[in-house]
């Protein structure tokens, strides 16, 4: 279970460009839950992911992952628990390293690194298996540099890397947003199959309301660094994109009226 308590994050504190990104956020995510996070630009969605992943440390508050306090744990240490797929396909893989080397890096995320040969036949077999699930033929391109793959292939590879050793928490940061619609659908389906298969606790930031409705078991709406709506699986079933947009507006208006 992921528990965030009283999270606060302010950027450029004390300057003219001060920005309150997360303003006292509490969140509990049950193991195996697939949470979609939606909200307008600047709502704090990406900051929340960065706080959970450890890219930033919160100014206040606390984060627990399966009862381990990770609040002050730096990103590279937290990577043993948390895996992440970025929006930019260029970020999730190392372009000058081969597919096999990239997968090896993913394996070492949980196993650690020692002074022993990185590439072994046994690992190669394991990677072939893991990549064949994607049906992109990547299992036959283990020696290709990741930089030579298309954006969609790279994003699929970084998904395979993130899920190779099941993380306690999988973070997806608009990971289909930079892809064309067809590739985007493909990567989303691959994501759902991996998340379901591995029963992974997942938090996905998305601007695609249909993705949120079709795949998530819970939808969280954020605004001004807070959670303004929390929709459970029983409620999602009856909703359409129109409902979601309408509700989003209503919440927004309420915020305006109340201040």
């Amino acid at each position, binding site marked *: 279970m992921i528990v965030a308590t009283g999270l606060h994050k302010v950027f450029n504190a004390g300057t003219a460009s001060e920005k309150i990104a997360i303003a006292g956020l509490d969140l509990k995510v049950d193991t195996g839950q697939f949470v979609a996070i939606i909200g307008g630009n600047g709502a704090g969605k990406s900051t929340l992911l960065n706080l959970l*992943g*450890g*890219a930033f440390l919160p100014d206040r508050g606390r984060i627990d992952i399966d009862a381990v306090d990770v609040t002050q744990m*730096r*990103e*590279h*240490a937290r*990577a*043993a628990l948390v*895996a*992440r797929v*970025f929006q930019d396909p260029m*970020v*999730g*893989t*190392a*372009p*000058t*390293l081969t597919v096999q*080397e990239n997968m*090896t*890096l*993913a394996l*070492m*995320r*949980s196993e650690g*690194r*020692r*002074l*022993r*040969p*990185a*590439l072994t036949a046994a690992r190669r077999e394991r990677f072939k298996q893991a990549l064949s699930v994607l049906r992109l033929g990547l299992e036959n391109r283990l020696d290709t540099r990741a930089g030579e793959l298309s954006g969609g292939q790279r994003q699929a590879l970084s998904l395979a*890397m993130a899920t190779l050793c099941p993380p306690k928490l999988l973070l997806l940061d608009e990971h289909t947003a930079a892809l064309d619609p067809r590739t985007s659908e493909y990567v989303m389906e691959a994501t759902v199959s991996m998340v379901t298969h591995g029963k992974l606790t997942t938090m996905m930031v998305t601007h695609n309301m249909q993705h949120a409705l079709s795949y998530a078991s819970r939808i969280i709406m954020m605004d001004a660094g807070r959670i303004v709506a929390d929709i459970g699986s029983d409620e999602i079933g009856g909703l359409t994109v129109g409902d979601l947009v309408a509700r989003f507006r209503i919440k927004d208006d309420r915020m305006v009226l109340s201040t």
Partner: protein
Amino acid sequence: MIQAFINLIPITLAQSLIYSFVALAIMVPFRTLSLPDLTTEGSFPLGGCLAAAVLTAGLDPWSSMALAIAGGFLAGISTALIHQYFKINSLLAGILVATMIWSVNLRVMGMPNKSVRPELTAFDAISPEILLGIWSQIALLAALVGLVVLGLIAFYKSEVGLALRCVGANARLSPAIGINARLYTTVGFGLANGLAALGGAIVVQQQGYADVTMGFGILVNGLAALIIGEAIIGRSTIQRQVIAPIVGSIVYYQLISLGLSTGLHPSDLKLLTGAFVLITLGLPLLTKGRAAVSAGA
């Protein structure tokens, strides 16, 4: 004139094998970590001056060289730490450290230069015959360089080495995938400058003296060697990337020797080498035209 060059081929070869440590030391931060480092300009003479000081004080050659490597390692991690914790550009951090090392070297030796008698050196410790014959020196140095190359290739292919390459290949990915990028960068800089210092310690024993100015211009020479080597060998695989600086160093110093024996003035060398590095780095941009330049920006 050509005869003079041919006569010099063996001695130049021996020299270039030693200087290939410097080219290797430049390759590691420049190519693997994608973070250029100028510390070599200081760690190479530091290794030489440290070795000269402790050798003449009576320390055995093996411990002396280990001490030189440790000194270079320390210089490298200083640069990396200054860069990371004081947010100072890596090039400036390297210049700072190299400049400060100049004073350290004077302190260590107590004088601007120091001669090292042959019987104190590692060459003589192996066999007193070696320093008398240039080919035996070449054989020994080639074996040492070969060992270092094999070791470095094995390291790059290890789990730790792969992580080091990831730090240079994708700085944003490395922490997200569990790699402590700061630690790896620091150790990488240390490793590189330990190699450069080893080169300094060996050259002092081979030529029989150390001088505080022995590092002057060493970086541009090493960079030129690296670029030549990569043009010949390429850098598509780990093996090629590690062998390129060695081949480059061998070719570069023969070219310099050829130039000198055909009447090139020694004092013009730094200008020419600098111009060569500039042209090789700048030419691809000029020939590809504006598109490439704007894409690079």
